[in-house]
């Protein structure tokens, strides 16, 4: 199992490369993608590494084909992944919806760059936060992680695979250009200490009559894979427990509620946040990704000036950790939300916050420096 995988130890590595090594440890053995800055190193490194561990790599004709190939491989039982940036993520939305409806585990890495459209290919952005939640049509509950260093490019890639296998759905690692391109220190733990989750398979034999691949008695149904002998109908149409298209409000109620409930009921297990100097904070930054790296320093300088500042860092963006944000807001006077977009995660914050919420909207192309965030902290502290 561990043959060909990166050995445990200390490394100095690029974020995108750390993501690939983590995916291989998580069990990823198929990658289909189309190169796009600033995610291309993932594709490039996968093309080199996957054959070494007995996996398969395909460079597809575009991102639509990439996500569909990934979903196909996953339905055959192989842990699969793709990586892209904003323009490619837009193209993948139809496939992501198909993955949600068919309950197909996979991981999509979106290394955010400046948008909209082709935007600024080589420079940073955080403008895909809402798209990662609801980019495809219809109701689903996204699981999205936002790394803020090279170590988390590694750790959260493994968590993304684990969540995708546990809840049987596509999971997004929402990185950004700086975190992905940056080199930083990485500790690879002993492989047997890394938690790996694998999808559950049916425990009944393939030939039993009335086999239900989407059996309602399960919160997350075991996955009957192509080639195992089960009669499985995989469709993007609203379907019943047998997987057959069924167009009634009753079946739709079961189908759609099932898709969102499996995540909503387990949200607390999926939520991950970092509390930074929050104990007595009355000015709270809510930050994620590269922007949180500026926020750490802004909070420290503000503290040295006697301002009681702190930060709640969102590691899980979706499902949104609403109860945690609400609790933090109950002791805060002001919440400041710095993000490299014109205001996205600020909306669910406002939905639950018990205090004033101020946005620090920063256009893509550069990271707001600690000074910029500090100025806002000083301003709201008056």
């Amino acid at each position, binding site marked *: 199992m561990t043959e060909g995988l990166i050995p445990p130890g*200390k*490394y*100095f590595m690029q974020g995108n490369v750390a993501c690939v090594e983590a995916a291989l440890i998580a069990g990823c053995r198929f990658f289909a993608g189309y190169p796009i800055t600033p995610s291309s190193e993932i594709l490039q490194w996968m093309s080199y590494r996957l054959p070494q561990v007995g996996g398969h790599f395909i460079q597809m004709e575009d991102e639509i084909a990439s996500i569909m190939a990934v979903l196909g491989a996953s339905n055959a039982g192989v842990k699969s992944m793709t990586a892209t940036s904003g323009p490619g993520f837009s193209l993948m939305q139809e496939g992501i919806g198909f993955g949600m409806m068919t309950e197909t585990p996979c991981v999509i890495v979106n290394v955010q760059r400046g948008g909209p459209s082709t935007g600024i290919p080589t420079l940073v952005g955080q403008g895909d936060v809402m798209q990662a939640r609801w980019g495809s049509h219809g109701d689903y509950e996204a699981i999205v992680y936002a790394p803020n*260093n090279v170590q988390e490019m590694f750790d959260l890639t493994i968590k993304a695979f684990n969540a995708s296998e546990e809840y049987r759905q596509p999971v997004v690692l929402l990185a950004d250009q*700086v975190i992905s*391109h*940056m*080199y*930083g*220190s990485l500790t690879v733990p002993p492989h047997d200490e890394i938690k790996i989750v694998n999808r559950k398979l049916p425990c009944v034999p393939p030939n039993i009559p009335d086999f239900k691949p989407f059996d309602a008695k399960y919160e997350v149904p075991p996955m009957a894979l192509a080639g195992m002998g089960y009669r499985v109908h995989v469709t993007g149409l609203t379907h019943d427990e047998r997987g057959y298209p069924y167009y009634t409000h009753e079946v739709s109620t079961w189908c759609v509620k099932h898709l969102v409930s499996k995540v909503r009921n387990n949200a607390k297990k999926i939520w991950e946040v970092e509390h930074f100097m929050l104990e007595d904070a009355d000015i709270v930054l809510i930050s994620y990704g590269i922007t949180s*790296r*500026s926020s*750490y*320093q802004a909070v*420290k300088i503000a503290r040295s000036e006697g301002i009681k500042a702190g930060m709640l860092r969102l590691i899980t963006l979706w499902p949104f950790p609403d109860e945690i944000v609400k609790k933090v807001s109950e002791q805060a006077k002001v919440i400041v939300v710095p993000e490299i977009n014109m205001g996205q995660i600020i909306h669910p914050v406002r939905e639950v916050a018990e205090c004033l919420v101020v946005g620090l909207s920063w256009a893509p192309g550069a*990271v707001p*420096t*600690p000074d910029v965030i500090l100025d806002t902290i000083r301003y709201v502290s008056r």
Partner: protein
Amino acid sequence: MVRWDISLFGSGGQGIIRGGQILSEAAVLEEGKDATLTIAYGPEQVGGWSRADVVISDEPIDFPLVTKPDVLVAMSQEGLDRSWKEGRVPKKLLIYDSELVNVSKIGGIKMVGLPATKIAEQLGRRVIANIVMLGALSEVTDIVRRESLLNVIRRKFPKALELNERAFMEGVKHAKEGATTV
């Protein structure tokens, strides 16, 4: 907390990014410090501008980018000019290739000039000018230990070990002689 912001600025093909990698790895893998390396370059593959920004700290690094370096290593005129134009003037020290960079208009900071590229050419390999510069950096700063840099270099270039060690020590020697405070 001791934090160093270092910018290596030159042209594509000069080993700027490799130089940044060696410096960062010396900090992380040899000394257990934290380091980040971010890179930027112009659209050209070779000959365009190329910059490696390294942050080294004995504590976990908060903000990983370099906005104003403590030390600038300038290996091309464009590297120097762009740094000044973009307000990235070094706070403590400028190390420059004295054959390639004209510093006659620069003043007010400590400067160390050495003909790194020429030294590398004399050793037979122009591409090891970056190693010469790292030797100079180890002489005039205490960002990382000399032995740490040499250990990383030995690990990275086992086939050209002696040449790289010589290039490094030439950098040390010239930096000793070339320090000029203006």
